[in-house]
C-alpha cells in the first residue's frame, strides 16, 4: 500500500544556512507518528517542510504518491491539514465561523457552502468537543479550548493526515490529556496524525511510531519502546533518563543516583 506521506532526505535552507540536513518521514493510514527531539533539532521544520508551509531545498516529499511540488493550494489542502502551535485570535469571530473556514479547500471561489460543508463543520465541532461553546467568540476561550478549536479547523478540512505542531506545549496537564485522547481517538477512527511533541512520556503513550530528530537529521524511527531507549535519551538529550514499562519517564534531574533501574 502506498503510504499517505513519504519523505526522503528532506533538506531546508533559510537564507544560506541549511537547518534541516536530511530527514525521513513515512506515515501510513491510521498511524500516529510522533516527531520528538531537543529544541532546535528540526522537528517543526520537518513538519512544515512536508506540509508545504516551508519550501524544501532538497529531498523528496510525496503525498499519496504525488510529489509535493506538483500539489498546489486546494489540492494539497485536501491531503493534509496543518494545526499550528499557536495562532492569532481574531476578535469577534465565533468558534463555528473559524471552523467553517476549514471547509474552504472544498468550496470554490464565488460558491456558497453546501449542506455537506455544514455537516462537516458540525462533525468537527462534535468530535473535538467544542460544540457546546460553538457560538462563543474565540477571544473568550481558554488555551486548551482554543487548541481544540484549531484541531476542529483541521478536521473540517477532511484531509486524511492531520499535522499538529506542538499542540500541547502551552497547555496544563488536564488540557494536554484531553488533546492526547482526542488525537489518539482520531487515529483509532482511521485518520493519520503527525504529532510534533516535546513530552517523551506523552509521545510514548500515544504514538505508534516515533521519529527522533537530532541536529537537523532523523536519527531513529520505530515503535516508542525500541527507539526511546536510555542510551538514546542520553545521546540525543544528554540526560540520564528512562521510560518505565507503565510509560512514565524517570529523569535523574540532578545527577544523583541512576534513573535506570
Amino acid at each position, binding site marked *: 500500500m502506498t503510504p499517505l506521506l513519504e519523505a526522503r532526505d528532506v533538506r531546508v535552507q*533559510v537564507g544560506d544556512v541549511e537547518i534541516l540536513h536530511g530527514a525521513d518521514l513515512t506515515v501510513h493510514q491510521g498511524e500516529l507518528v510522533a516527531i520528538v527531539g531537543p529544541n532546535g533539532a528540526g522537528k517543526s521544520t520537518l513538519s512544515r517542510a512536508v*506540509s508545504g508551509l516551508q519550501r524544501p531545498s532538497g529531498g523528496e516529499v510525496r503525498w499519496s504518491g504525488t510529489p509535493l511540488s506538483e500539489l498546489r493550494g486546494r489540492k494539497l489542502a485536501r491531503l493534509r491539514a*496543518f494545526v*499550528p502551535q499557536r495562532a*492569532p485570535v481574531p476578535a469577534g*469571530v465565533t468558534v463555528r465561523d473559524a471552523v467553517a473556514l476549514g471547509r*474552504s479547500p472544498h468550496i470554490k*471561489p464565488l460558491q456558497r457552502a453546501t449542506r455537506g460543508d455544514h455537516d462537516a463543520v458540525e462533525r468537527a465541532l462534535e468530535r473535538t468537543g467544542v460544540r457546546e461553546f460553538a457560538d462563543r467568540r474565540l477571544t473568550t476561550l481558554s488555551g486548551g479550548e482554543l487548541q481544540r478549536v484549531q484541531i476542529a*479547523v483541521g478536521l473540517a478540512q477532511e484531509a486524511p493526515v492531520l499535522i499538529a505542531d506542538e499542540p500541547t506545549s502551552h497547555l496544563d496537564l488536564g488540557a494536554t490529556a484531553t488533546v492526547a485522547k482526542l488525537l489518539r481517538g482520531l487515529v483509532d477512527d482511521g485518520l493519520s496524525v503527525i504529532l510534533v511533541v516535546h513530552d517523551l512520556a506523552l509521545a510514548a503513550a500515544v504514538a505508534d511510531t516515533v521519529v527522533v530528530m537530532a541536529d537537523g537529521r532523523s536519527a531513529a524511527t520505530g515503535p516508542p519502546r525500541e527507539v526511546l531507549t536510555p542510551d538514546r535519551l542520553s545521546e540525543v538529550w544528554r540526560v540520564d533518563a528512562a521510560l518505565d514499562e507503565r510509560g512514565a519517564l524517570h529523569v535523574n534531574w540532578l545527577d544523583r543516583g541512576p534513573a535506570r533501574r
Partner: protein
Amino acid sequence: MALGAVHVPLADIWGSLTGTAEEGPLRQIIVELRLPRTVSAILVGASLGVAGALLQGALGNPLASPDVIGVTGGAGFGAMLTLLVWPSAIALLPVGALAFGLVAAAIVFSIGWSGPHAGSIGRVILAGIAISALFGAATTSLMVAYSDRVQSAIFWLAGGLTSEGWSSLKVVWPYMLVGMVLALGLMRPLDRLALGDDVAASLGGRPRAIRLTAAIAAALLASSAAALAGLLGFLGLVIPHLVRLAGGTSSHRFVVPASAVAGAALLLAGDTLARVILAPVELPVGPLMVVLGVPLFLWLLREAV
C-alpha cells in the same frame, strides 16, 4: 445635493438628473457641480474605507492605513510636484497624485516582498515607513523651494473635495474599479489569514500572495482617493475600526463592504456639512472629518468591551 450655498429644491434635482428639467443655472449647478462632487465623495469615502480594511486585515495590524504602504506620502509628493513646480499643468494634479502614490507603493512592495523574509509584516511596514519618510522629505523640500506658491497647496494637503466636474473622475475610475473588484475577491482569503499564516497555508492559501494582492488593491484605491480629494488618510485608518466596533465582528465579509458604505456615508455627510456650515465659505473636509470622527471613535472605543 439640495444643500449648499445655493438651495436647490428636490424636485429640480430630480428633474435635472432625469433630463426633464429646463436648461438653467440650477440644472447646471446640479449636473456639473454637485452631482460629480457627490459621486466623488461616495467613491473616495468607500475607497478609503475599503483600503483601510484591506490593509488592516492583510497586515494584521490595527494601525495600518494607506500611510503605511507609502501611498499617502507618494500621492502628496506627486500633487505638490504638479501644484508647485508646474502650476500651469494643474489639470494633471490627479494624474500626478495617482501616479506617485502608486510608484511609492510599488517601491514599498518591491522592498517588502524581497529577501529571505519576503512578505513578512514587519518588513512591509518598515519599508513603508522608510519610503513615506523619503517622499515626505521630498514634499517638504518642494514646499521650501517654492514657498511663494505654497498657499495653493494647503487646501489639497488638508484634504477636500472640489467642484471641478467630471474630469478627475474620468482619470481614476478604472483604478478604483480594479481595486474594488480585487477587494471583493479578497474577503474570504483575508478571513483565513486572520487565523494566522499557517492556517491560511494549511487551507491551501498563499499568505504572501494574499497580502501582496490586498496591498496592491489598497494602493489603487487610496491613490485614486488621494487624486480626487487630497490627503484624507485618517478615514482609511478609522472607518474599519468604526465598522468593527459597531458591528462587533472582524470578519472581512462584513468589514470590507461595511467600510465601503460607512466611508461613503461619512465623507458625504462631512462634505455636505463643510459646504453648509459657513456657506458660501467652504471648510476643508479633511480637518472637519477628523474633528467629527475622533469623538465618535473615542465613544465607540469606550463602549466596546
